[in-house]
């Protein structure tokens, strides 16, 4: 079986339609994000919004396709690298555990889609998460996926959990809470392996952190994820601390979002 499986060849049934990054970023109305659109000044996602339930449905579908890709990415990491020369066995065991979690999240997401009235494949799928999981350096791959993207997942799951709480929807609230707990673990894995594998390699550490920033920026359209009260997705400081982020690192993400918002308001 070949190493580093290309994103465009991922197996999907006909229900799923892939939207490329070029198509997404080339949409003159703004890229789709957080169940809404970056071209608009998106409000914080709450049930009180007239389109709140539909935005939550769209976001949940994005989470679902993200879970599929996270499963595929963690699975590839188990296969793409050799124990000893590339990675320690324990890293592969962590990725195997993550596969187990992501498979469970896929099943939960399918059940939530049914609960919210969403058909599988109802919204276009973007493959950026898996693309980040194609980095040939395992440290960069884990930093981009586990720290940047799973870090974003922490913020998204917490926002959706609050949405469920405010709407009085116990199904959504509890499902998001359970998945959130797993995401914190996944981000912590990324933080731990980043530090362990780069303990004596400052250059590789810097490259990995730079890659994380690139991925973070790609997902920071108009600063939709931030600490301001009206940010569509709330940056979740406490859970990020639990996941191994330092205060400075969290500040940096918050600053990046703030700058992107100012730039977008232009």
């Amino acid at each position, binding site marked *: 079986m070949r190493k580093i499986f290309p994103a465009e060849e991922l197996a999907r049934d006909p229900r799923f*339609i892939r*939207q490329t990054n070029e*198509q*997404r970023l080339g*949409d*003159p*109305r*703004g890229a*789709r994000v957080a169940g*809404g*659109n970056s*071209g*608009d000044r998106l409000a914080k996602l709450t*049930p*009180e919004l*007239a*389109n*709140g*339930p*539909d935005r939550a*449905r*769209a976001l949940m579908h994005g989470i679902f396709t993200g879970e599929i890709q996270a499963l595929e990415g963690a699975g590839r990491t188990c296969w793409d690298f050799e124990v000893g020369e590339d990675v320690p066995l324990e890293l592969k065991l962590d990725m195997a555990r993550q596969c187990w979690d992501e498979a469970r999240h896929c099943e939960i997401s399918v059940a939530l889609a*049914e*609960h*919210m*009235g*969403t058909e599988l*494949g*109802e*919204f*276009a799928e973007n493959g950026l998460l898996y693309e980040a999981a194609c980095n040939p350096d395992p440290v960069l791959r884990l930093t981009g996926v586990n720290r940047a993207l799973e870090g974003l997942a922490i913020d998204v799951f917490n926002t959706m959990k609050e949405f469920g709480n405010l*709407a*009085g*929807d*116990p*199904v959504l609230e509890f499902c998001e809470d359970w998945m959130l707990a797993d995401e914190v673990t996944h981000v912590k894995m990324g933080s731990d392996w980043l530090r362990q594998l780069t303990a004596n390699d400052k250059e590789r550490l810097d490259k990995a952190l730079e890659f994380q920033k690139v991925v973070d920026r790609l997902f920071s359209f108009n600063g939709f994820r931030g600490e301001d009260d009206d940010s569509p997705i709330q940056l979740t400081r406490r859970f990020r601390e639990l996941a191994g982020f330092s205060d400075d690192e969290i500040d940096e993400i918050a600053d990046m979002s703030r700058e992107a918002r100012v730039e977008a308001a232009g």
Partner: protein
Amino acid sequence: MTQVSVTPESFDMVFYDAAVIGEVVAEVAERLGLEETINLEIDEGSPLGRSKIISYDPIELWVDGGALENTKRPRQFGTGRARDTLGRLLLRILDRRSGRFDETPADDDLDLMQFVAWDVHCVGRLNRLGIGGQRQRRLYQFRNRHGFTDVADAAFEQLWDSSELSWTEIERISEACRAS
């Protein structure tokens, strides 16, 4: 015969065809028994899904481009989505003309609970005509406004399954959830 006017006549930001949209509007209107001139204005720059009735007589409708979009293929026209959006607007016009909705507040004065309850009654009827549907999506929206309770679910069933409720009945059903 239904006459439809679509504005704009050509699109730059989305891949829509005004003639195709006009055909869909006419098809839905005729199935609902509306035979008159309909003006539809589309804001192609907005991917959101808002829609509203600008004028009841003559009929003037306004929609975000996103309200007619194929969610699987962004920027492409979605016939099913368009039927659903336009069908709901046209059915509300018919409701208001029926005499059963004389006490209905102006559209801008409806709160989210009232609006969603009426929407459920519209989409349930459209579904039986083979236009629109997505019953579970509508139930989820209804639960968000009326509660995730058995009372709310029973109210939804009543709104969805009924053929010709009056505004007073819709409001009573919605209010019962508020009280529970």
